């Protein structure tokens, strides 16, 4: 890491790391304290502060709490320059340089300044983790009030109950990436595999005469109403406790509540009704994958799970999420070509990469122009048909 200690306008030191300012170059300490004031959650049991820098964030945080503070620093030089500036020593401050040395309990608050995400961009492994963490924090903060209101409304209208038994050993998880344009016909006249569609793929399927066995909604925002609005879909709906309540209300078929791991209210209700707490991974497809894992499918076949796109169209034709974007990020596709991607898609891909390496389920991909997923082989239509035929014989 390249650390440059500079003089700020107010006479204090400021710090630029790998060309990115961690603090203001005008009022660095005031800026650091404002950030801690904004982020600090007094109800946490302990704190993890990502990055040490000049110690400004740590120093102020240490004045606000006597609970344990774990600080993850990335470079030995950080320790040296922090010691030269502000460096509080107290028994509740623990400096660690390895992620594995962090003490993570259920009620820990992770304090991650967005500058660290950019600073660590060249360190692929750490960057992926920080980027995912930051995006989830921002998303949660942005929608937390709406999520809570949705949860209250959804609980008022529906009682949680157990999920139906699976009817096949194969589940097709249908997302609305552009490759669905090419593979959607594989799902016609299907009787052997169960089809789970994410909300944005529902209309794509219905427009092609395919009625999924289930559809999954997770987003809190109002704009997902259009995923169900105007359809006469009466199949099963799975929806996250915090999913948009007005969208859920539109559905006329059977409905099942899903509960996310890490959201206190969802965990409480899940425990009460003895239902699973699902890892959501930040997207509807990752949540659906967790649901299928819980339901015990032996094989999951991914459709339209691209994490990228060719040209500017992000989703398949007819998808409610389709839009045109410009991007300068690329990723390796299953056919060896490079496809366009976006940072949020990379967050979801990282989740799939981690889960598909560890899962006992056989996971298959059908997106030849979609991103490569670790431990997930690409199959063609014949192989998909064989897989279905084999499952019938068992």
């Amino acid at each position, binding site marked *: 890491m390249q650390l440059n200690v500079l003089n700020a306008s107010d006479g204090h030191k400021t710090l630029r790391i790998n*060309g990115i300012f961690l603090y203001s170059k*005008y009022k660095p300490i005031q800026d650091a304290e404002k950030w801690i004031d904004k982020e600090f959650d007094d109800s946490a049991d302990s704190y993890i502060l990502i990055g040490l820098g000049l110690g400004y964030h740590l120093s102020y945080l240490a004045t606000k709490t006597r609970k344990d503070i774990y600080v993850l620093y990335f470079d030995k030089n950080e320790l040296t320059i922090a010691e030269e500036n502000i460096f509080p020593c107290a028994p509740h401050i623990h400096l660690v340089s390895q992620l594995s040395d962090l003490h993570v309990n259920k009620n820990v608050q992770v304090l991650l300044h967005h500058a660290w995400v950019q600073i660590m961009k060249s360190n692929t492994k750490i960057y992926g983790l920080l980027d995912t963490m930051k995006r989830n924090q921002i998303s949660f903060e*942005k929608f937390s009030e709406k999520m809570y209101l949705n949860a209250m409304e959804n609980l008022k209208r529906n009682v949680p109950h157990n999920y139906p038994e699976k009817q096949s050993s194969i589940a097709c998880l249908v997302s609305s990436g552009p490759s669905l344009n090419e593979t959607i016909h594989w799902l016609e006249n299907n009787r052997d595999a169960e089809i789970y569609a994410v909300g944005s793929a529902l209309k794509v399927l219905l427009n092609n005469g395919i009625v999924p066995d289930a559809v999954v909604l997770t987003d809190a925002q109002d704009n997902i109403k259009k995923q169900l609005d105007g359809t006469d879909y009466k199949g099963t709906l799975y929806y996250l406790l915090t999913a948009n309540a007005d969208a859920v209300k539109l559905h006329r078929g059977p409905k099942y509540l899903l509960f996310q791991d890490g959201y206190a209210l969802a965990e409480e209700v899940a425990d009460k009704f003895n239902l699973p707490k699902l890892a959501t991974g930040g997207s509807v497809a990752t949540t659906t994958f967790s649901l299928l894992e819980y339901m015990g499918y032996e094989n999951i076949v991914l459709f339209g799970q691209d994490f990228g796109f060719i040209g500017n169209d992000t989703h398949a034709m007819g998808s409610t999420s389709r839009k045109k974007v410009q991007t300068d990020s690329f990723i390796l596709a299953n056919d060896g070509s490079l496809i366009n991607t976006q940072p949020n898609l990379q967050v979801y891909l990282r989740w799939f990469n981690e889960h598909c390496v560890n899962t006992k389920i056989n996971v298959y991909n059908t997106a030849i122009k979609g991103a490569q997923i670790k431990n997930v082989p690409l199959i063609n239509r014949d192989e998909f048909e064989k897989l279905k035929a084999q499952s019938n014989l068992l």
Partner: protein
Amino acid sequence: MQELVEIVESYNEYINNLPDGLVTVVEKLRNENFSEALVNIKNFSEGILWLSQAGKLINQNNGYASIDVNQITDFLLEINEGLEMQDYVLVADIFEYELIPFFEALEKAKVSAL
């Protein structure tokens, strides 16, 4: 003449509202609401262009507008560099400590230079 009056009114209204708009940009950047901040910054860059052209037109028609975009060119370049690097601390800094004071101090335009 009527056109000049209208341009002066629009110019003054814009510079009157601009500092508050820039405070919002700073807040969005500091609160990590980057996507909305970037939309506002794009609008601001178009606004600066308009302001510069309107100022030129007012002065050419014997009015008075004190804006000189050259005075803030370095800051605009620094913002551009910050955006390219995704250095949002730097971008928020420039808006808060350089551009807001600049636009707050900007004199109102007049129909007559006298």
